[in-house]
């Protein structure tokens, strides 16, 4: 039974036949998998048969909260979207704090929403407490994310309604399109494209109920202490002043900022992308996500030039790395505009910057010519080119149609050995960390459930600060398991990854106790995380993935870093993988979880029934 936090209900909507069901959430499953990513991993492992095309009607997409959403627990505005990734074919979760959708879903009475099937014409879903309607979205076709949010609120005549829209890119099933609410993206893993494949333009929710903590007095006490700890964290003021952009300088100093398709570590335009520049040129206001005491979000405004008057939330570290330095752009105004276009069209800025940089390198190497690119001359550092390619990708127009398939598929079509420079793992493009300079990030990219997704447990800080050894394979296997596990827990309770400012694991588990009434020791929490991660592994293995897919492109493992602090280094993937599999209790060569590991994690029965 649930005594706090959870609503105990999952809403299930089938868009093919219009059936709407409210199902009970099994409290034992919630204890074992917490919520969010863990809960949906369990549900999908049981329900999704292997080999389905992510765009087929039978495929599912889930929007899930954790037990903490809706309370005033710091750093808990978020929700996750889980789907089979159209980029990699593996399980993938994206996460967003935008628009307070997660808390509102709880107030409406649900821990999660599962959508199946495909509507014949564009629709949006309106969850109004217990009343759930599938509404016509014909007039929203082709509208940007911002326009869609506004139009639905107007139609429903309530500005307090939370809306999760896709943009035109999602409708056109651009494989790396995301779901973007209030300028905040659930970007990676193609959730926007999957919604598009279902003709689901948006999900809107209004909730007038609420969420209660199981232990309100304890909650008040630890909340007060947490607020003090967050204020006292020496890193908090920098976060409030610069948001995530402080990481640009840290990454660059380590040689880990991606530059011109991950080809080098030095960049003439770096000054234009540093935190101080970004703050001075575009940031105008500190924005908190819902219920968050650390306002790291920044309202941005372009004040002059061609794009004067552009208003958005951002740009942040990952976007600056991918649409900035990775495309050779050192002009924050251009990056801000590119960020804005991606948000409005519903594109993941990371994958977009990744595939554009790949295309430019292909052009430089002569793999594609202006005949293939609709006459465009592709070169690094060309702001107009980046903006034009974003438009083309979003509209699947000409050369953009090829890039809309993502870096892996584009490389397969272009051929000529271009896959050596296609910077992805399992089809998911690298994020804003060059793995040759921080090799644990390479291990993370190779072993993260959906492919190269940094937000599955970045090792960057630990390698630099704790291990002080970013260049060798030593201790990376163990470290990667630890960081991945930490993200498993935060994605399932659900905390923001920035909850590290002032909240250590013990404090997070303390909030879990105050809200749910369930205590977890550190050991139990680790076991939950191991369980979640290993079950995702089992899902992928069932789909046909093997250890050979835990790979990195040729450049990362065979081409030495040409310059910077990691000059001469390559990613020592093979020895790291062995250590990693061992740390996880998986077979050292095949990467298949061992029987005793499954037993220890309580997964044996599940595997026997659904494996």
């Amino acid at each position: 039974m649930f005594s706090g936090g959870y609503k105990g209900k999952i809403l299930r909507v089938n868009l093919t036949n219009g059936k709407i069901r409210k199902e009970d959430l099994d409290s034992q499953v919630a204890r074992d998998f917490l919520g969010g990513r863990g809960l949906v991993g369990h549900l999908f492992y049981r329900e999704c048969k292997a080999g389905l095309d992510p765009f087929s009607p039978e495929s599912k997409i889930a929007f899930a909260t954790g037990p903490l959403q809706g309370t005033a627990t710091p750093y808990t505005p978020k929700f996750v979207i889980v789907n089979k990734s159209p980029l990699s074919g593996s399980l993938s979760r994206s996460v967003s704090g935008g628009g307070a959708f997660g808390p509102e879903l709880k107030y409406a009475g649900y821990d999660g929403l599962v959508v199946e099937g495909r509507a014949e014409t564009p629709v949006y879903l309106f969850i109004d407490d217990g009343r759930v309607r599938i509404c016509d979205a014909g007039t929203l076709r082709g509208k940007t994310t911002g326009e869609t949010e506004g139009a639905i609120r107007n139609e429903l005549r309530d500005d307090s309604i939370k809306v999760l829209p896709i943009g035109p890119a999602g409708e056109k099933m651009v494989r790396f399109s995301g779901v973007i609410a209030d300028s905040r993206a659930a970007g990676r893993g193609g959730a926007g494209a999957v919604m598009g494949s279902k003709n689901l333009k948006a999900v809107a929710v209004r909730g007038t109920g609420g969420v209660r903590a199981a232990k309100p007095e304890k909650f008040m006490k630890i909340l007060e202490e947490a607020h003090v700890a967050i204020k006292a964290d020496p890193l908090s003021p920098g976060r409030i002043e610069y948001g995530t952009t402080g990481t640009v300088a840290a990454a660059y100093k380590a040689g880990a900022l991606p530059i011109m398709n991950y080809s080098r570590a030095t960049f003439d335009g770096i000054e234009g992308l540093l935190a101080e520049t970004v703050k001075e040129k575009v940031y105008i206001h500190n924005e908190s996500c819902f219920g968050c005491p650390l306002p790291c979000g920044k309202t941005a405004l372009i004040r002059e030039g061609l794009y004067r008057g552009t208003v958005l939330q951002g740009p942040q570290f990952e976007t600056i790395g991918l649409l900035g330095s990775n495309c050779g752009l050192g002009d924050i105004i251009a990056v801000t505009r590119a960020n804005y276009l991606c948000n409005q069209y519903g594109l993941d800025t990371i994958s977009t910057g990744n595939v554009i940089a790949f295309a430019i390198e292909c052009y430089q190497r002569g793999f594609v010519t202006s005949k293939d690119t609709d006459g465009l001359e592709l070169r690094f550092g060309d702001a107009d080119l980046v903006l034009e390619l974003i438009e083309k990708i979003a509209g699947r127009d000409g050369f953009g149609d090829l890039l809309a398939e993502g870096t892996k598929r584009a490389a397969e079509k272009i051929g000529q050995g271009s896959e050596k420079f296609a910077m992805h793992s399992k089809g998911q493009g690298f994020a804003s960390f060059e793995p040759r300079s921080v090799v644990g990030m390479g291990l993370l990219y190779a072993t993260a459930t959906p492919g190269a997704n940094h937000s599955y447990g970045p090792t960057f800080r630990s390698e630099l600060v704790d291990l002080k050894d970013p260049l060798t394979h030593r201790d990376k296997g163990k470290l990667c398991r630890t960081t991945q596990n930490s993200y498993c827990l935060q994605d399932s309770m659900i905390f923001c990854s920035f909850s590290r400012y002032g909240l250590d694991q013990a404090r997070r588990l303390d909030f879990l106790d105050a809200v749910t009434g369930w205590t977890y020791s550190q050991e139990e929490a680790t076991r939950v995380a191991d369980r979640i991660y290993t079950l995702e592994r089992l899902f992928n293995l069932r789909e046909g993935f093997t250890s050979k897919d835990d790979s990195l492109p040729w450049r990362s493992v065979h081409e030495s870093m040409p310059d910077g602090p990691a000059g001469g280094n390559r990613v020592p993937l093979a020895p790291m993988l062995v250590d990693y599999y061992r740390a996880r209790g998986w077979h050292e060569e095949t990467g298949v979880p061992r029987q005793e590991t499954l037993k220890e994690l309580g997964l044996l029965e599940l595997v026997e029934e659904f494996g």
Partner: protein
Amino acid sequence: MGALKSRLKVVDEKCSGCRICELMCSMIHHEGLFNPRWGLLRVEINRKPGMDTPLSMIDRPFVCAQCEPAPCAECCPEGAFERDQSTGIWRIRRDSCTGCGLCLEECPNHVIVIHDGRAMKCDLCGGEPVCVRFCPTGALIVD
């Protein structure tokens, strides 16, 4: 008429729109129930990505000003509002309120809510408002 002892005040430019004030207000006044829409103050979030969207007051709190004269009290057909002479705080006598909603419409800051059929308004938590206590940016103060 006793002098006004204290009331909530807003420092607009400090608000970052976290809505913790509404969450905690809801928790305290609704027996532990979290939902910002039941808070007895509100934060207007005016974040509209787009071209040339207005940028003044992006995140803006509205609180009960314990008005004098108080439109909520004056319009109430049941005379359910009473003022604490020592603190200056306007309260609603729950037994007298019929939940007609007139006071909601008259409140210039729209910070009265009807919950479970009765109107509720800010009572300054008896002197130490929970919204001020948990505001992380100093946007809410007791004046």
